[in-house]
């Protein structure tokens, strides 16, 4: 093996410049892969933690995925009857037996659950009307499923209990109403019920849609306003282990029948974008590596042609076809290894360079700089890609070299 390495080195140094060019190509591919992966994964990881942080891990809704089975279908389960366009019965909407379901969930290990009633309402202060989603909640339970407390800039969740009809507003919502802490507004429900509510707190999540369109009140108060006594239309669940969200959501749905969505399902749009981003990243790097692989193919092919005599003499000396094939594979792999090593160094430098970049504007992360993910596995993956590309690129010329008939060559040269 040492001998093959020595021979490979001798042959490659002959084509030093060409070899260096293809090695650089591989290195660039590897480096770009590492750097883009750092940016993308950094951003994506931040985003996902953000989602996991802000939104409930599982949301149980007052809907079912499919219309309830109709009597005709139940009577003919073999599909003799097909019922189309089922109109929902005019029943009281809401999750049935919510209290019992919350109790069942809470009994599970590492699960916290909180019932809420979300309803549209019109908030009126002086001459201003702003429509908002009013979420009725139970502060003690809600605190365990949501991070809204962290976002409070005035007052606390418990303050809802302090006054008869307390309300907590998003900061931007308060601005739009022109209202301040301690002021009293009127909340109007679609049913026509009107309640006087006192602003006991303000929050700022940083998400515009939430800050200017959401408000919180006690569950009981929201039920009174919406005229839906004892109704809960969502159960929010938070888990100690987020990775269990999807399987648990499926389990809950099959048990309760209510539509249950994990955070992954609720963020499917964004997660799909990530998949596309990653696919683009992989294809761009793949293209770079492909070009570099062609470079290696080119070098090895040239060496094989140039070294026809040497190959013939090695075979006549007693080197097997396998030896010769390995000899040229090794050259490709050596070029790939050098490219990978150089690329890892280059990639690391690029990441450190990116880390120094400061944006003039605030990014969502608030730091005004790239969020970089420095994962050793990315380096390994990129190097592996480079090696595979290099090895594949040298297979064809290596096989050609191994099949060379020494008799033909020796005859021609004599």
């Amino acid at each position, binding site marked *: 093996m040492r001998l093959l390495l020595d021979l490979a080195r001798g042959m490659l140094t002959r084509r030093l410049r060409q070899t260096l060019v293809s090695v650089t190509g591989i290195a660039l591919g590897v480096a770009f892969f590492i750097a883009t992966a750092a940016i993308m994964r950094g951003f994506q990881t931040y985003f996902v933690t953000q989602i996991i942080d802000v939104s409930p891990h599982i949301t149980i809704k007052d809907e079912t995925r499919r219309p309830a089975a109709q009597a005709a279908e139940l009577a003919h389960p073999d599909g003799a009857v097909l019922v189309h366009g089922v109109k929902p019965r005019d029943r009281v909407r809401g999750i049935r037996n919510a209290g019992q379901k919350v109790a069942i969930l809470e009994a599970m290990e590492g699960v916290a659950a909180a019932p809420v009633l979300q309803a549209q309402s019109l908030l009126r202060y002086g001459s201003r009307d702003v429509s908002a989603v009013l979420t009725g909640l139970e502060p003690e339970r809600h605190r365990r499923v949501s991070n809204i407390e962290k976002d409070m800039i005035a007052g606390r969740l418990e303050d809802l209990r302090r006054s008869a009809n307390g309300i907590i507003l998003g900061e931007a919502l308060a601005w739009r109403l022109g209202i301040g802490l301690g002021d009293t507004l009127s909340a109007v429900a679609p049913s026509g019920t009107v309640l006087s509510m006192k602003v006991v707190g303000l929050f700022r999540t940083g998400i515009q849609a939430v800050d200017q369109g959401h408000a919180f009140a006690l569950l009981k108060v929201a039920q009174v306003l919406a005229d839906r006594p004892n109704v809960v239309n969502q159960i929010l669940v938070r888990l100690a282990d987020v990775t269990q969200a999807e399987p648990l959501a499926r389990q809950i749905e099959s048990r309760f029948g209510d539509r249950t969505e994990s955070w992954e399902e609720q963020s499917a749009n964004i997660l799909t974008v990530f998949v596309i981003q990653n696919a683009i990243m992989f294809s761009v790097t793949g293209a770079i590596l492909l070009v570099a692989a062609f470079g290696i193919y080119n070098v090895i092919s040239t060496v094989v042609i140039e070294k026809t005599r040497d190959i013939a003499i090695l075979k*006549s000396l007693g080197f097997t076809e396998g030896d010769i094939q390995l000899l040229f594979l090794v050259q490709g792999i050596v070029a790939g290894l050098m490219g990978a090593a150089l690329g890892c160094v280059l990639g690391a430098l690029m990441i450190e360079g990116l880390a120094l970049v400061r944006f003039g504007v605030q990014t969502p992360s608030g730091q005004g700089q790239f969020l970089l993910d420095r994962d050793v596995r990315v380096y390994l993956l990129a190097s592996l890609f480079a090696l595979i590309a290099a090895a594949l690129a040298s297979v064809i010329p290596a096989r050609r070299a191994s099949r060379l008939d020494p008799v033909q060559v020796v*005859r021609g040269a*004599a």
Partner: protein
Amino acid sequence: MSGPPLLEARAATRQLAEGVVLVRDVSLAIQPGEFIAVTGPSGSGKSSLLYLLGLLDRPSRGEVMLEGRDTARLPAAELAGLRLAKLGFVFQFHFLLPEFTALDNVLIPIRRLGRLHGAAARDRAMGLLAAFGLADAWQKLPEQLSGGMRQRCAIARALANDPALILADEPTGNLDSANAAGVFDIFERLTREEGRSIVVVTHDASLARRATRQIRLMDGVVVSDQAQG
């Protein structure tokens, strides 16, 4: 000369796919210590015969036996192993690897065989170089050597694994008469003193007379096979 032959061709014929016959029905046995010159006009099949005897090519019909073993049906890798351990080739062109020093060139077959390692392998290679007057040139690249030195280095490489049989195809074709005579001196020594067998193809009649046996080829057929000297 008696005892089992080192190498034996039995009615060996080499025919190309297009029907051209390079070597026809050649039967000959090579005993240890024989110095055989193969002569004949250009295109008579001398090289073709040498490739058959050197297991570099396979006969289309007939057999080539090395130490009593038929080689015609052995897999290519096994033939390569036999060439590595038991045979040595010298060609008209030296075929030294240009990136490697004289020493490294001689070391290549030794390292591939792997019987000698490290200092022992180096000593063997240096000994061979010294025997052919290349002791001071061991770290030179082939391009820095003269024609005669290159050919002697190539002979040293052919001898690297202590082969029983050396096959040389016009090894003196590119050399002046002094250097050519030097190569034949070496061959004489290898056969007489070391008991190796040599088959050498040559166009030079006076050099051919120095061999102990001369085989004449004509159109791929052995026309005469005589002991001499």
